[in-house]
């Protein structure tokens, strides 16, 4: 099979775009696609200092690589962050990959060590609080990204959520009746001045298969392993499988579904984040008087001092040149 544009050997066939592409033209295609999404959803009109959250997996690594190639076109100041959640060898290897990637793309970065800053790893906090690890992990990541952004005048936080992630979450929230969380799946969440940066999903129209192909073809240092705590069966994974099978029979159905959602629901979801205020303990964004992390640590320890120390730890971190 040959590239439709140059007749070199193709590495991927994209039925939804009626294209087969070689490595060079696939890279250009994906980078252009991300640029189009950024413009289509007005992702970078609220500032130029962008923090990219990189986990070491294929999606966020692909995101950082693409944004670094677009930074002069978009006039972005890029910064990277890796959060070491204390998941043993998994975290250790992910960190090695991420540090290599920061060097490759020449992006200033910082590393947050949860055990050093908060005194707990995700598994430890999970066992003490008896809450699922995935829920603690998500909570810590959101809190930490907000804190770093706040202390470093970051305008925008970019995350590696893909087309498959977003459509799976949309369906999941509908199935579970969790409608109040749907606003979080918009391509861009507006900033709340002085409290929260804007949050964007530049890969929202890129599939996981395209991210994986991009990461392999560019030989990105990526941790292809599975999180040791990822569940054997999950609703999201089942929905992703369903959509992938549907996409084979109906090319383009995933992107159609996403665009319909954004067009039909985004307007009605505007302002859903309007109840966000400052946590009365730590000062970070919260949907109630006390934020979720302060509540959690307060319940486990009987005091909030660890969160306040964690805050100071993050405040003291600096971005370093790779």
């Amino acid at each position, binding site marked *: *099979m040959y590239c439709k544009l140059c007749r070199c050997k*193709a*590495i*991927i*066939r994209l039925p939804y775009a009626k294209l*087969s592409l070689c*490595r060079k033209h696939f890279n250009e295609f994906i980078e252009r696609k991300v640029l189009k999404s950024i413009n289509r959803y007005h992702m970078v009109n609220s500032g130029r200092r962008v923090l990219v959250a990189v986990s070491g*997996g*294929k*999606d966020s690594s692909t995101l950082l690589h693409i944004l670094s190639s677009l930074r002069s076109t978009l006039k972005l100041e890029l910064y990277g962050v890796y959060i070491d959640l204390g998941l043993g060898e998994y975290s250790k290897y992910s960190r090695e990959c991420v540090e290599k990637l920061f060097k490759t793309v020449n992006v200033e970065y910082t590393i947050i060590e949860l055990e050093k800053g908060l005194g707990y790893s995700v598994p430890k906090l999970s066992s003490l609080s008896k809450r699922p690890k*995935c829920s603690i992990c998500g909570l810590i990541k959101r809190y930490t990204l907000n804190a770093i952004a706040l202390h470093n005048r970051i305008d925008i936080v970019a995350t590696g959520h893909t087309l*498959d*992630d977003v459509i799976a979450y949309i369906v999941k929230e509908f199935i579970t009746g969790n409608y109040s969380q749907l606003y979080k799946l918009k391509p861009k969440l507006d900033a709340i001045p002085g409290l929260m940066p804007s949050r964007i999903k530049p890969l929202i129209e890129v*599939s*996981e*298969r395209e*991210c*994986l*192909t991009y990461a*392999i*073809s560019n*030989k990105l240092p990526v941790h*292809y*392993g*599975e*999180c040791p705590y*990822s*569940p054997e069966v*999950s609703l*999201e*994974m089942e929905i*992703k*499988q369903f959509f*992938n*099978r549907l*996409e*084979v029979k109906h090319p383009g159905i995933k992107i159609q579904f996403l665009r319909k959602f954004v067009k039909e629901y985004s307007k009605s979801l505007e302002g859903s984040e309007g109840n966000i205020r400052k946590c009365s303990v730590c000062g970070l964004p919260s949907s109630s008087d006390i934020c979720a992390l302060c509540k959690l640590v307060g319940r486990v320890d009987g005091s909030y001092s660890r969160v306040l120390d964690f805050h100071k730890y993050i405040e003291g971190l600096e971005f370093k040149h790779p």
Partner: protein
Amino acid sequence: MGIFKVKIIPKNIVREVNIPGRSEIKVYELLEALNFVVEEVVVTRGGSEILTEYDTVREGDDIVVFLAPSGG
């Protein structure tokens, strides 16, 4: 004859696909036998060559199937 060894990432398991009488097959035939659809995988040979579903693999090739869906 007709045994194709495939490593599956991230599970890190090796599976054997037995298609009697065939020393080479198309990638889509291999995926069918493994019960995967093309939209959920990337297939490589020899560590770095990325294959489309219409490429041919041979017995003894170093084939890796990367699963795209992540999270959970």
